């Protein structure tokens, strides 16, 4: 199977690889997938608590080239968006941007799930910090 140029570019030069302190109140961490399924994505966002804007995003992915490219692309898109804008990123946007074939659509779904999980984690930390009794809502 041939890979699109954009997938190859992200695979060869992945953007924003790394990890941030997951215990920091400004950092949201999402980890989705499972090793036995062949895909695990960890995506982190660092949010400015004043503005709600994502200032930094990092990822690490165990998975095929398309999964690596999907998460790399997601970190690029996340930076500069507010958390609410970030939740509007759809897996189909990733499919279109990377020209993923049908068998690789699940990689984009996983990336969308990772974004939602990371934002959700950040939001629950925030509500938790303000109203400790509300943590159970998540």
């Amino acid at each position: 199977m041939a890979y699109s140029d954009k997938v190859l570019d992200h695979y060869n030069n992945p953007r924003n690889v790394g990890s941030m302190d997951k215990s920091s109140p400004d950092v949201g961490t999402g980890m989705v997938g499972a090793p036995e399924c062949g895909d695990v994505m960890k995506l982190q966002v660092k949010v400015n608590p004043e503005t709600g804007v994502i200032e930094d995003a990092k990822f690490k992915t165990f998975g095929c080239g398309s999964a690596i490219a999907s998460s790399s692309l997601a970190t690029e898109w996340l930076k500069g968006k507010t958390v609410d804008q970030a939740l509007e990123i759809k897996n189909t946007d990733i499919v279109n941007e990377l020209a993923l074939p049908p068998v690789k659509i699940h990689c984009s779904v996983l990336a969308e799930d990772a974004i939602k999980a990371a934002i959700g984690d950040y939001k629950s930390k925030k509500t938790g910090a303000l109203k400790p009794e509300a943590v159970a809502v998540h």
Partner: protein
Amino acid sequence: MKLPIYMDNHATTRMDPRVFEVMKPYFLEIFGNAASRNHSFGWEAEEAVEKARKQIADLIGATPKEIVFTSGATESNNLAIKGIAEMYAERGNHIITQATEHKAVLDTCKRLEKEGVRVTYLPVKTDGLIDLDQLRDAITDKTILITIMYANNEIGVVQPMAEIGKIAKEKGVLVHSDGVQAIGKIPVNVNKDGIDVLSLTAHKLYGPKGVGALYVRRRNPRVQITAQMDGGGHERGMRSGTLNVPGIAGLGAACEIANREMVEETKRLRFLRDKLKDRLMNDLDEVYINGSWEHRLPHNLNISFAYVEGESLLMGINDIAVSSGSACTSATLEPSYVLKALGAGDDLAHSSIRFGIGRFNTEEEVDYVGNKVAEVVKKLRELSPLYEMAKEGVDLSKVSWTAH
């Protein structure tokens, strides 16, 4: 050194130029039908076929009359298993095979199950070998056939055929073996190994694609097989169809070369394979060999690089042709059933790479492959959240993953 490097010799092999030379005249000059009995065109073709029959027989310790030509090992396996099930239906309806067989055997057995044949699929141990006590226990008075591959196409594990043959003989059960990966690579002898029916194909031993053979024992016992294709009754009535004379000449030549050069070639391939293994294992942590190291083909290395997904590794070594047990490289999106059968866990199957070193690989190529693979594994581990967690001391088996 030329790129890309081909190191997927369990899938197929490049034809040996010496084999090609032998085949050449049978396309344009000696084009007769080997079944034409009344002119020299036919006689010359027949002569080539009979020469090949002897070359094949010599490689496996058989006699030429015991060789039936086919289109390849898939056909040989189908013919052997279905042909025996049909011929011996009155004696019994039970076949024993094992979990890591090639699909040409497993799916043939599954089809027979639909027709009322009972099939036992023996599990394999973590080293990929079958348990001989389990084999013995599985045999009933209805068992007509044991079909166990000589060596596995993914992990290269070599089954104890001689012991299997002995057990079968005690119980009066026939033995078929898919010998595709073993023949021409390690010594195979139908008498010493107690094999009654043996499948082989040319393209795995530096011969052409589209031609294979089935050894069918004629004495002690005389094995009979019901033909699975109707026609002119070629090959002693077992396989109709005009013989592929150029292909057969090529198969014969490939067997003769393998027979003559096996000892030296094995030594060279084992050296290269071991060098590659040592290169990778000395440099990288958490690298696992899949299947028995001791009972293994000399040119096979099947290895899992923990925390690295196989397809992404293949992507990084795209100037090297190898294969992976990762789900992402299979049409079914399931990881290798062979590796799963070893019980190592799906995650190691996703991380596996199969190297098959062959006659035309050089030491320079092996060094290049070792360096490149190690480099890409390190890069992908930098990217792997699992590697990071493992380094932090997290027990990955205790994490509750969000199944996807």
